[in-house]
């Protein structure tokens, strides 16, 4: 397994002086499903934004497949933000065309199959879809790419249990097996069974990086329970 993502002495201080990430070092190997776990404000989203080139580090570096974030890394990262980023006026079909034009690894047929399975009309405008359906469309778009790294920011927050199951199934069934999946969430119990590795974050620092199996073996409890112990208020 090769190192796909490397954060070296990564620091992000926002204007106003708030330190979101401080001197963080971590590496992510290819072919793994990793949980980036931490309470609110621990720096998860900031790290993800820096990986995607949406924020510039104050200090340090993020290296993805040998490159700093830019057009080359964006070709291989499939990113699901916690926001709905699609234009409401567009139809689902328009968006499929958009993704096909910009991402060489986008597989429209795979997306169409998933949309059909969920009875989502390709001709429907996004503004006519419910929030949950829009989130599903976004997940389908992201998982229909043969990316090297999938970065999913809170993919299961705020959705009903049935949708949650659907999302997890979609992730498992569709990701490129050579690739890594980085799932950022605080709902650990829902994703625990699919995680290979976990990274615990607190106040912008890595407090633990290990395999999920090792945590269960060493501490004799689930990752979710162990997380609650580490981050007990």
């Amino acid at each position, binding site marked *: 397994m090769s190192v796909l993502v490397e954060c070296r002495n990564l620091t992000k201080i*926002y*204007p*106003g002086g708030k330190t979101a990430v401080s001197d963080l070092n971590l590496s992510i190997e290819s072919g793994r499903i990793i949980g980036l776990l931490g309470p609110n404000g621990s720096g998860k989203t900031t790290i993800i*934004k820096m990986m*995607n*080139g*949406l*924020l*510039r580090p104050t200090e340090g570096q993020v290296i993805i497949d040998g490159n700093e974030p*830019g*057009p*080359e890394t*964006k*070709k291989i*990262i499939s*990113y699901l*933000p916690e*926001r*709905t*980023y*699609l*234009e409401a*006026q*567009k139809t689902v079909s328009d968006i499929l065309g*958009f993704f096909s*034009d*910009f*991402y060489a690894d986008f597989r429209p047929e795979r997306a169409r199959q998933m949309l059909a399975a969920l009875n989502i009309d390709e001709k429907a405008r996004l503004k006519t879809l419910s929030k949950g359906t829009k989130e599903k469309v976004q997940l389908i778009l992201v998982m229909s790419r043969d990316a090297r790294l999938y970065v999913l920011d809170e993919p299961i927050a705020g959705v009903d249990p049935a949708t949650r199951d659907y999302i997890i199934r979609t992730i498992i069934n569709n990701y490129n097996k050579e690739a890594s999946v980085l799932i950022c969430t605080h709902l650990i119990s829902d994703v625990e069974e699919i995680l290979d590795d976990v990274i615990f974050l607190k106040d912008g620092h890595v407090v633990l990086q290990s395999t999920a199996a090792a945590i269960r073996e060493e501490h004799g409890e689930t990752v979710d329970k162990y997380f609650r112990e580490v981050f007990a208020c």
Partner: protein
Amino acid sequence: MLGNLFKHEWKDSWLIMTILNVSVLVLSLIGSHSTQKYFEILEEMDVGGFIYAIYILLYAFGIIALSLAATFYFYVRFYKNMYTDQGYLMHTLPVNHNELIVSKLLVALIWRVISFIVIILGIMKMSFSFEDIIYMVKNLNLVATDVVLVVILLLGMALYSILLGYVSISIGQFSARNKVLASIGAYFGIKIIARILRSFLTLINIYNYRELIEKFRDFDDPTTRATFMLVIIVIVYIACGLYYFITQWIMKNRLNLE
């Protein structure tokens, strides 16, 4: 990828811009020569002149409103695509910041040119016959250099206007509280600074604005006309370059989507 960005920007904006421009044409046709006879009939009834005057006034307001709406539309598109939730998609496309800005700039510029032509045609249709226009153009005694420089100047002014919006919106992103209000503040702030700089240049006599304008009004000396326009062109394009650079720098180094 610039081609793809351009294609999608065009696809997303053509309908609303076509509606705006067709509206200008329809307004112009209503008040054109061919319909003026109806106003003449009304004039005989002592109210025609008044009604036509009101119509001309409304037409002028309509043109201004449509022109402002078109400018505002591209500003809002830029803001939404780049700095709101849609930015999460636009800034994670495998393209660089220059491609993002240039694609938007080109589409906005093309629509500016189309709108300009439509408005000129509309005004001409309202006010003059074809023969009048030919007569006026002949009497301007323009040389080829004048035409080329005027086109370059008009394109520069259109670019300036678009980039002024882009740079103001980008500067507005530094505000933590109200980015829209900060963008509007930046817009008027830049305008005030530009005005102060112009006054300063006039004062130190590098850019003798009034004298050149007086000479230009004579329409006699092609060299003076060309010099005047070249000075303005250089200043306009320098400002465009500066606004572009600031916009690109903020997008690259200070992007902070909420």
